[in-house]
């Protein structure tokens, strides 16, 4: 599709790099006709830190902490995927208690990430009250994670061979009480999201991704499950003890942002049940197996369901203490083609500029940021800088 610049109907709006909806500094280049977005492209180079190259210069133990810092919110998923990957090279069996603790911390991190996203999505549509209340309830999960692992973010509980710390009975008691409280609050938020007129008006019919497009463009995570496709790595390719811990894969079929909100709330309720199951059925035994520093020559691929979607790590080792090649594919990267499709107006489906923040936020990109928008009006030759609040209260050119 080409938009000739001599015909002044189409404007380019670059949204970013300090960006309006959520996270990472990312450049969204929108081509706009009046109020409707007709094409979108994405430039993600602003947070590129060269992690894959840096991993080739450090040994396997140092790389655990580097993998953890790829993302602050999904840090448990990254360490889990990394440790599973390297353990696959050794081909060793991990003790059962360690696997149950891994799943417990992973599901707690999923609850925390989904509540964080729900609060930020509420903030994107202007519903600040809901944002504040959800984040107050999320503090219970952060306190639990701090008690189990020693830090609120960057938990570093997974290591090659098992987990680093054991969990005490008092912590398990506190965890069960917190789960009862969180279940009640999450059900209340679900009721709010299903009945509140603001949420329904801003989220229904926005950011539609049809089933055929979702499959063709290889979307992952809740973005895919809100388009009626039942795919979850915990069910299709089980790792740790996910084949023993029962849960349901949540699917909705309305293809829009409201479906993604409801998928994530329901996944939070499933995770609460999984945490309860893990605590009640935790076996006893050792939590760690000691392994040599250099794994044997080979390659391995490991997949994990991070809160944002399917995360895949690939390692190739040459027998030394440093990896030869380490590849990370994060779920947000995999959702970029689907995002560009979601932001394109086609036929009856129109995307307004005001829908862009919430549609972009609904794929749950990673990390938080502030925002600035540069508007250019080609005819008048004016260039002015808008602000985050200005974009949310955007009333159009007229």
């Amino acid at each position, binding site marked *: 599709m080409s938009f000739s610049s001599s015909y002044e109907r189409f404007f380019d709006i670059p949204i970013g790099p300090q960006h309006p909806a959520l996270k990472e500094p990312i450049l969204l280049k929108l081509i706009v006709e009046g109020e409707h977005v007709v094409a979108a492209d*994405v*430039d*993600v*180079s*602003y947070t*590129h830190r*060269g992690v*894959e*190259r840096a991993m080739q*210069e450090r040994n396997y133990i140092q790389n655990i902490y580097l993998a953890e810092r790829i993302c602050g919110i999904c840090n448990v998923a990254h360490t889990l995927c990394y440790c599973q990957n390297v353990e*696959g090279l050794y081909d060793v069996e991990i003790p059962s208690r360690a696997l149950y603790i891994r799943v417990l911390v992973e599901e707690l991190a999923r609850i925390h990430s989904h509540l964080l996203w729900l609060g930020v999505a509420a903030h994107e549509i202007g519903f600040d009250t809901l944002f504040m209340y959800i984040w107050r309830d999320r503090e219970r999960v952060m306190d639990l994670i701090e008690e189990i692992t020693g830090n609120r973010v960057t938990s570093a509980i997974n290591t090659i061979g098992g987990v680093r710390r054991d969990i005490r009975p008092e912590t398990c008691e506190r965890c069960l009480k917190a789960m009862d409280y969180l279940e009640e609050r999450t059900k209340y938020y679900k009721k709010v999201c299903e009945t509140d007129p603001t949420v329904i008006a801003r989220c229904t019919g926005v950011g539609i991704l049809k089933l055929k497009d979702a*499959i*063709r*463009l*290889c*979307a992952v995570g809740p973005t895919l499950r809100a388009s009626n496709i039942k*795919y979850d790595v915990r069910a*299709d*390719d089980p790792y740790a003890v996910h084949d023993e811990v029962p849960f349901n894969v949540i699917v909705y079929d309305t293809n829009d942002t409201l479906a993604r909100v409801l998928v994530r709330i329901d996944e939070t309720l499933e995770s609460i049940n999984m945490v309860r199951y893990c605590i009640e059925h935790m076996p006893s035994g050792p939590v760690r197996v000691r392994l040599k520093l250099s794994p044997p020559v080979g*390659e*391995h*691929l490991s*997949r994990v369901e991070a809160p944002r979607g*399917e995360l*895949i790590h*690939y390692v*190739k080792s040459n027998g030394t203490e440093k990896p*030869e*090649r380490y*590849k990370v*594919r994060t779920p947000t*990267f*995999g959702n*970029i*083609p*689907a995002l560009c499709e979601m932001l394109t107006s086609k036929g009856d489906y129109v995307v307004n500029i005001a829908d862009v923040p919430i549609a972009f936020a609904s794929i749950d990109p990673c990390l938080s940021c502030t925002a600035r928008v540069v508007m250019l009006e080609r005819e008048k030759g004016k260039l002015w800088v808008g602000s985050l609040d200005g974009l949310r209260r955007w009333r159009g050119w007229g």
Partner: protein
Amino acid sequence: MNEEDVVSKLKEAFGDKVSEFKTAPRRVFFYAPPEYYKEVVRFLAEKLGFVHLQAITATDLGDEIEVMPHLGRGLTVSVRTRVPKDKPVVDSVVDVIPGASVHEREAHDMLGVEFRGNPNLTRILLPEDWPKGVYPLRRETKLTPPKPIRGGKE
């Protein structure tokens, strides 16, 4: 479908053009030469139902560059292909699986692999003013440590 079925169906369709099979629980790795790479990917996506592309990994092996897409949902099939480093050209699979566009752009930025047939091989991970011809994940590219910012020891 389990790993053995996939291996036998591939051998049936392509004979000895595919080789170096390695299987593990829910993982299959094999090699296809660059001329048949796109045909193999098309066969996996259209006939065997591996429509979901997870990632495309590109590795520098010294004299060659290895390009390996990973396909599948429950079972993961990884197709390896190797091209010489001084002329790294591979067929693009964007018309078979449109979601491969971002992964091919990444491999192009990081290692300089040309994907023949991809209409949009622009920068995605490196900044716009990065010098052309410098590929960060190749072995020849050396890293320089950063300078200390005022005070403190290095």
